[in-house]
């Protein structure tokens, strides 16, 4: 089976759909099994510590690539893609003997095994002394995935060990290297939104902050716009970060923000929840006496449910609800559906380039404060709604028309799944 794997890997690349760095090989499947071999436990750390560090190390590569890693301690060894073990001197039937304490601390074989020299003083991430087992593990997994040594300051693939005074992460260029071998992360989202909060500084000033969030099934990412990546350690379970709302399958997030109203809502199915941004949890009952969850038909009369998605347009004080190929507009000041709706999405938001349009069943729609624009998401693409700036540059563009689609992964980077078994790490 190893021969087949190698053959397939090589064959696939020769077909050109897995480009590689200077001829490196790559796995041809996205879910890889790993195991810390029983005969190869370290004598320095508890087995739980060792397995925890390796789980975190594999997760870190999942967070920046389409690969998922699953620890498997039961299947036959031949089914295990990556085997890890500790040894000293002559070890685990390996052709390369370890040299004792100092210098060589580990090595890895492409598409296969990782060996750690147990004469080294490996330490768990919480310990600043010795050699960080996490850092070495991430490096060696990089080799197994097909990455060579890279002499770039800051790269995790540098051959020499660089002590780290604080947590390390896989940097931008290392991410691009592994994505050259395995492609970018891509996939539909349930909801995308900017969550706005008011905070008071130590001087009592009110500061308005926002963060961008991507929801998918029962996990989510905070996207750091400034750094073009998701927050280190994401995704995390929705249940962990958001309180009182459904733990998966959110249809839409809407923030109604006018001089009079400042309300945040989550929608799922036929119901919606109002979220208290100050105390970071859903209301059971809001100041107007509304109990939650509420039926959408109660809070937004005339709007059908379930919906695909919705967003609030600050320009006309309307919430736009999308369902199938139709869009409904709801006036938040009059608290009623706007006459003339529903309309076809293709009519209300026409395509700038004919046929380049999501047509129906949008995944998400949101107004981004970073880009000062509204975006529609469907599958792995997004369409930007023409805004004032676009019209200044090109007055022929119609109001609310959609610019040609682009890949989500080309604008919001490295929003990658991790295996469900490590979601709660």
């Amino acid at each position, binding site marked *: 089976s190893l021969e087949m794997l190698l053959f397939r890997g090589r064959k696939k690349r020769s077909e050109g759909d897995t480009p590689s*760095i*200077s001829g490196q*090989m790559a796995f041809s499947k996205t879910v890889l099994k790993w195991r810390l071999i029983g005969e190869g436990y370290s*004598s*320095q750390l508890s087995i739980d510590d060792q397995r925890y560090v390796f789980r975190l190390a594999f997760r870190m590569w999942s967070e920046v690539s389409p690969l998922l890693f699953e620890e498997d301690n039961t299947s036959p060894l031949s089914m295990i893609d990556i085997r890890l073990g500790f040894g*000293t001197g002559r070890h685990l*039937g*390996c*052709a*390369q003997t370890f*040299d*004792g*304490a*100092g*210098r*060589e*601390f*580990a*090595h*890895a*074989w*492409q598409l*296969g*095994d990782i060996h750690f020299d147990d*004469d*080294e003083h490996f330490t768990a991430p919480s310990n600043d002394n010795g050699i960080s087992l996490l850092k070495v593990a991430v*490096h*060696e997994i990089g*080799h197994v995935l097909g990455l*060579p*040594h*890279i*002499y*770039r300051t800051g*790269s995790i693939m540098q*051959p*020499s*060990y660089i002590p780290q005074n*604080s*947590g390390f*992460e896989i940097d931008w*260029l290392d991410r691009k290297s592994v994505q050259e071998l395995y492609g970018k992360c891509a996939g539909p989202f349930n909801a995308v939104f900017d969550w*706005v909060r008011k*905070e008071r500084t130590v001087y009592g000033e009110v*500061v*308005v*902050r*926002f963060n961008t969030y991507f929801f998918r099934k029962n996990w989510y990412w*905070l996207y*750091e*716009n*400034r750094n*073009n990546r998701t*927050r*280190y*350690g994401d995704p995390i379970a929705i249940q962990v970060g958001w309180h009182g709302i459904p733990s998966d399958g959110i249809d839409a997030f809407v923030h109604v923000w006018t001089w009079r109203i400042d309300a945040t809502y989550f929608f799922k199915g036929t119901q919606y929840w109002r979220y208290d941004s100050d105390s970071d949890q859903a209301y059971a009952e809001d100041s107007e006496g509304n109990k939650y969850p509420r039926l959408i038909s109660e809070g937004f009369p005339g709007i059908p449910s379930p919906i695909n998605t919705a967003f609030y347009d600050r320009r006309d004080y309307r919430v736009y609800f999308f369902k199938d190929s139709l869009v409904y507009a709801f006036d938040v000041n009059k608290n009623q559906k706007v006459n003339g709706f529903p309309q076809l999405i293709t009519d209300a938001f026409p395509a700038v380039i004919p046929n380049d349009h999501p047509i129906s069943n949008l995944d998400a729609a949101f107004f981004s*404060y*970073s*880009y*000062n624009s509204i975006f529609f998401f469907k599958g792995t693409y997004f369409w930007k709604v023409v805004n004032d700036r676009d019209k200044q540059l090109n007055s022929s563009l119609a109001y609310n028309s959609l610019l040609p689609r682009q890949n989500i992964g080309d604008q919001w980077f490295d929003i990658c799944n991790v295996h469900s078994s490590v979601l709660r790490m």
Partner: protein
Amino acid sequence: EKLFHSRDHSDIELPTSHRAEVIVDEVTAKQFLEKYGFTNPVKWDEKHYEQEESFIDANRAPKDILSLIQEGTFASRSSGESDAENPLQKPQYMKALKEFQKAYNLPITGVLDDATKAVMNKPRCGVPDKKADLNNTIDNTTTSITNETLDNRTAQVERQASYSAGTRQKR
């Protein structure tokens, strides 16, 4: 914590045989350059898997297998010359040493100076630095230039946004 049985912990003192050989002279430096592919590329993966296949051949007597393993160690890659004189005087080793110094951002002196020895003695990964990796150095430089362009664009966008993004920097 390592287990110890005698009160003075002497039994966990690592015997010298468990200490990695320190790179102190031209001979050990030459072996280092050979081992990590600076003299000629090391075929890393095929060698390992061949080993595993022959290792699996249960009919072989253990002694044969051991000899096989002996065969496979890379230290025997030396060209068979005697090492009595300074081996790094040879052109290919001088070139290899310069490549090593260049790869590790050391002054390219072609001489085994202290800085070079210090880097050679650092804890490191056992995977050889293949020739292709060195080419990689050049590639990444070009890539990083592209990245700066992107960063500029991002910085510009960020400046436009009048909001600040509060985020948790550490994992």
